[in-house]
């Protein structure tokens, strides 16, 4: 009998196969005494040699030429003769092998980091060599993403951007992490790669490498020690699911034809023109931060017009919703001189910052309006981090003054959700940013993995705030979209529509699964699911209540078919 584990499903799909664990970086041990300095230096140098040989073998096996070249450069670093001299010096000064390795690479690390640019980007390569060499010295497995030579399920405590950078979606069948939440890096990467994933799965790190496991990225169910037949069935199910999604096209709608536009979240023109991404019905969130980051001077009006024109020109008759600059102390823009804040999530950010630098917002609004005019694209504009009716009213008048006809605000602050009706009297539309709305409504830091349960988009408290916006939108006959990670959750999509949400904006990859999910239910069933979810005492119960409603309606549709 296989063991059952359960977590939060964050990227839909099925996977089954052998699991391999991402090995964490070794902890630096306490200094250990040694008697023979020459033998100690040889031990450290030998570890570097083994690392170089391992990286070299991985370079030979790499399918991608760029990846192979990066690995070969790393081999040269691990083999660098100056490291051998530095290690010998450190050992003679009293350092044991692990500390000698750390010191030898540390000197170069510091120089690279100080140089900036290309060299600063190589710091991660040096850290990787150090971690691998120290692990080798200590007789521990090499840290990093395993490479068993066949497709596998990756298990980890959590995944950092460095871990997932070179991940090959053909090799990794799915992720299971012990911590992390629906908006964690692991979840976002899994959805963008289109591979199934489960997070917050207690006990998964106890599963040994090579054990056969199956996972369901929708329900969060994980089965450990399954038989070959289960693996074959699961692989078959996933193939059918992918085939079905690959064939899925057309606008978003419920089973009875109620239209729900399925839009894309983008940051650059490239995101919109990616031929590999499914076609969206428009852009529900164009993040403009990329234009501003790393800038000592604000981007000029002309540069902004050129950038926006480049994106709007790809619209092909579709609507594009632009979010004005959303920065804060956690994602600073140099020329705005952010003061360090004790809690940047609750500090001067988003529209609050724009109100302190009105010229930055005016230039941006003018550039958006001019680019919209030049391309003839239907462009809506919205402000991030709006808390009050006054802020919304002020933003609308500034947007209109710039010549923009459709101006709205994001709902990320609970106070704004509760004031949705009054805000809608001033604005043309609302767009709910569920990630921040969860964080503020549940007083739970998005970066804090331990609180992931509170950040689950199925939390009835979050659904109630979305419902307040949906109800106000219906009364005012104005659009209310969702553009947070919740919009990419296929199982949740009918619930959001049932709460009164009129469009869903997500990573384009998620669109086919959301489209299929919506097409399976009538608008009335969506409302029934929404009521069931909101009445539940917690997120798990909300998910189960909706599964029950879905089961009933699916059973009915089979009988009626």
């Amino acid at each position, binding site marked *: 009998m296989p063991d059952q584990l359960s977590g939060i499903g964050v990227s839909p799909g099925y996977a089954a196969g052998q699991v391999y664990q991402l090995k964490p970086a070794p902890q630096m041990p306490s200094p250990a005494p040694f008697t023979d300095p020459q033998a100690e230096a040889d031990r450290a140098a030998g570890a570097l040699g083994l690392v170089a040989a391992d990286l070299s073998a991985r370079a030979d096996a790499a399918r991608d030429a760029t990846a192979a*070249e990066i690995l*070969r*450069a790393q081999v*040269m*670093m691990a083999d*660098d*003769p*100056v*490291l051998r001299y530095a290690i010998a010096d450190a050992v003679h000064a009293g350092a044991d092998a692990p500390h000698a390795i750390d010191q030898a690479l540390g000197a*170069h690390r510091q*120089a*690279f980091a100080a*140089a900036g640019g*290309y*060299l600063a980007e*190589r710091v991660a390569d040096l850290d990787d060599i150090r971690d691998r060499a120290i692990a080798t010295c200590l007789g521990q497995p090499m840290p990093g993403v395993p490479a068993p030579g066949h497709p596998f399920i990756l298990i980890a405590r959590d995944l950092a951007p460095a871990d997932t950078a070179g991940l090959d979606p053909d090799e990794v069948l799915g992720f299971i992490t012990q911590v992390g939440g629906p908006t964690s890096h692991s979840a976002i990467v899994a959805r963008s790669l289109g591979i199934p994933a489960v997070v917050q799965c207690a006990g998964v790190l106890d599963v040994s490498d090579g054990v056969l496991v199956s996972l369901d990225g929708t329900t969060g169910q994980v089965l450990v020690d399954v038989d070959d037949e289960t693996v074959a069935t699961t692989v078959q199910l996933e193939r059918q699911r992918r085939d079905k999604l690959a064939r899925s096209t057309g606008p978003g709608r419920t089973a009875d034809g109620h239209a729900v536009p399925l839009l894309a979240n983008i940051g650059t023109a490239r995101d919109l023109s990616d031929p590999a991404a499914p076609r969206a019905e428009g852009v529900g969130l164009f993040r403009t931060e990329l234009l501003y980051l790393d800038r000592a001077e604000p981007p000029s009006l002309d540069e902004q017009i050129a950038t926006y024109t480049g994106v709007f020109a790809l619209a092909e008759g579709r609507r594009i919703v632009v979010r004005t600059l959303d920065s804060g102390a956690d994602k600073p823009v140099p020329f705005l001189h952010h003061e360090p804040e004790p809690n940047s999530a609750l500090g001067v950010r988003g529209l609050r910052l724009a109100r302190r630098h009105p010229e930055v917002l005016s230039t941006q609004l003018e550039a958006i309006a001019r680019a919209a005019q030049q391309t003839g694209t239907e462009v809506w504009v919205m402000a991030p981090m709006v808390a009050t009716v006054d802020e919304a009213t002020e933003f609308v008048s500034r947007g209109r003054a710039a010549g923009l006809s459709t101006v709205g605000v994001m709902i990320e602050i609970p106070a704004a959700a509760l004031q949705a009706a009054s805000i809608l009297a001033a604005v043309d539309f609302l767009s709910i940013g569920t990630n921040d709305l969860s964080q503020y409504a549940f007083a739970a830091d998005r970066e804090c993995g331990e609180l992931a349960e509170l950040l689950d988009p199925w939390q009835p408290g979050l659904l109630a705030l979305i419902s307040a916006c949906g109800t106000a939108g219906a009364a005012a006959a104005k659009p209310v979209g969702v553009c947070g990670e919740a919009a990419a959750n296929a199982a949740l999509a009918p619930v959001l529509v049932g709460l009164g949400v009129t469009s869903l904006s997500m990573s384009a990859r998620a669109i086919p699964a959301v489209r299929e999910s919506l097409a399976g239910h009538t608008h009335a069933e969506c409302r029934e699911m929404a009521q069931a979810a909101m009445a539940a005492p917690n997120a798990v119960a909300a998910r189960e209540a909706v599964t029950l409603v879905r089961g009933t309606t699916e059973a009915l549709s089979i009988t009626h078919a």
Partner: protein
Amino acid sequence: MASRTITVGSTSGLHARPAALFVAAAAAVHPLVVTIGTADKAPVPAASILSVLALGAKYGTEVTLRAEGDGADAALDALADLVARNLDEDPDA
């Protein structure tokens, strides 16, 4: 002591692929020891990728190669030619 002073011809500078090709070539002339330095940075071993990268030599930076011993002139000629070429565009390199 033989020496050659040339300017870096690779558009990306003595970084990434050009640096790797140069260091591999400098290591291959062993036991001859070649150093490389710039106007404002002291000479470093040319066979050390970490040292060569840290020089930060960009396209057009003037670098000086030095070596002493049998075959130093021939080795420096070959290495100087490599530095002066645009290794980012050279398919044979």
